[in-house]
């Protein structure tokens, strides 16, 4: 082997070992994620189950309209005489809940709606199990998916305790997302530009609210809510530390 070849091989080996990149093309952005921290509050005592959030999310994020792919959806919990609990989510709540209650033979004792979305956990099991580094949590508290890197192994979908993830289908409208994992991103492309997520915008009763608790004003608002209400998270026993807080749900809500 001659000297030139040897040098080439050694250099690329060292390069590979230290992880040097060939070129670093960075898309410029002036958003500093260290100055933001997002939390979400869902007020189940206000939700009317109109389903606008489900529709708006699908429009804003190019989620396929086919029935079972949702970044956000609404569930209805109904308690009947005889301690019977029925849960339903017809088309995820996309068309609202047209029937007055799911079981017309019995008398309803208590019933309400629970909007669901990705909890953007502080300790996300989905990020933990991704084998290639295609999903990650940003310092401002949002778990994102890299659609150009995801291999579609579906491990994150198995690991999410809340059913928040799904595989973007082959017949979806966004070409680059096909066969990759997808989920609610708190409309990252909106909140980083000062707007609100689509679901928060269209909710007619402000049942869904987002707070940037690095912002002094919003932080006060958020902590007021936390101090004045009985607040809970979903499946807290799993240790995922969700960042979506629910007001007014019972312990049976999963």
């Amino acid at each position, binding site marked *: 082997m001659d000297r030139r070849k040897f040098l080439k*091989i050694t250099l*690329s*080996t060292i*390069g*590979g*070992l230290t*992880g*040097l*990149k*060939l070129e*670093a*093309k*960075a*898309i410029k*952005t002036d*958003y500093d*994620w260290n100055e933001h921290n997002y939390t979400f509050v869902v007020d189940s005592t*206000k*939700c*009317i*189950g*109109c389903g*606008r959030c489900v*529709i*708006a999310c*699908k*429009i*804003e994020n190019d989620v396929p*309209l086919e029935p079972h792919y949702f970044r956000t959806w609404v569930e*209805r919990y*109904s308690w009947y005489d005889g301690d019977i609990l029925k849960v339903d989510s017809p088309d995820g709540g996309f068309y*609202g*809940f*047209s029937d*007055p*209650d799911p079981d017309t033979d019995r008398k*309803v004792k208590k*019933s*309400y*709606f629970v909007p669901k979305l990705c909890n953007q956990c502080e300790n996300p099991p989905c990020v933990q199990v991704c084998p290639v*580094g295609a999903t*990650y949590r*940003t310092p401002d508290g949002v778990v*994102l998916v*890299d659609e*150009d*890197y995801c291999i579609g192994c579906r491990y994150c979908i198995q690991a999410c305790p809340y059913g928040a993830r799904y595989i973007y289908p082959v017949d979806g409208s966004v070409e680059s997302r096909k066969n990759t994992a997808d989920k609610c*991103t708190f409309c*990252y*492309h*909106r909140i*980083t530009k000062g*707007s*609100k997520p*689509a679901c928060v*915008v*269209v909710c*007619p*009763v*402000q049942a869904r609210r987002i707070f940037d608790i690095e912002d002094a004003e919003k932080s006060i608002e958020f902590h007021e809510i936390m101090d004045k209400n009985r607040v809970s998270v979903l499946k807290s026993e799993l240790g995922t530390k969700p960042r979506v807080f629910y007001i007014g749900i019972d312990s049976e809500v999963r």
Partner: protein
Amino acid sequence: MRKFNSRILAIYATILILFFVFKSLTVPATFGELGWYRGDSVRESINLSQKFADTYQCFDCHVDEYALWSVGEHRGVECESCHGALKAHVLDPVNYRGVDEYLSSTAYSSTRDFCMSCHVKSTSKPESFPQITDEMGWNCLQCHDPHNPIEGEW
């Protein structure tokens, strides 16, 4: 060392070197920059296109509606909740007057159905929320201005 063993070692070393060369060529440029993921992915997520605008942008032009809406019972309902995603309209009001297929009134078979999509009586809705079971089938707009439903003079 025996010839065979030294050759086995050489093969192993070559495979390792080839692996590192392959790795340095295929790992994306911004991987590892911000964490165990592709740095560009964050920027791409930030730069996705928006379909919904912000409500305050409507009132630069729609002043009359603002006057009604801001004091009425629907002031908690953002414009796009009934009118659909309209960022394209904000950017080009003249040419784009798009009506949303699912979120606007035209998605429903009648205006009454549109109002009922929120207001239909349901045991699952909070008691304080105005709900109706009107069996007469009247068109709500006969009496109610959607921008100021209770006090507005229609």
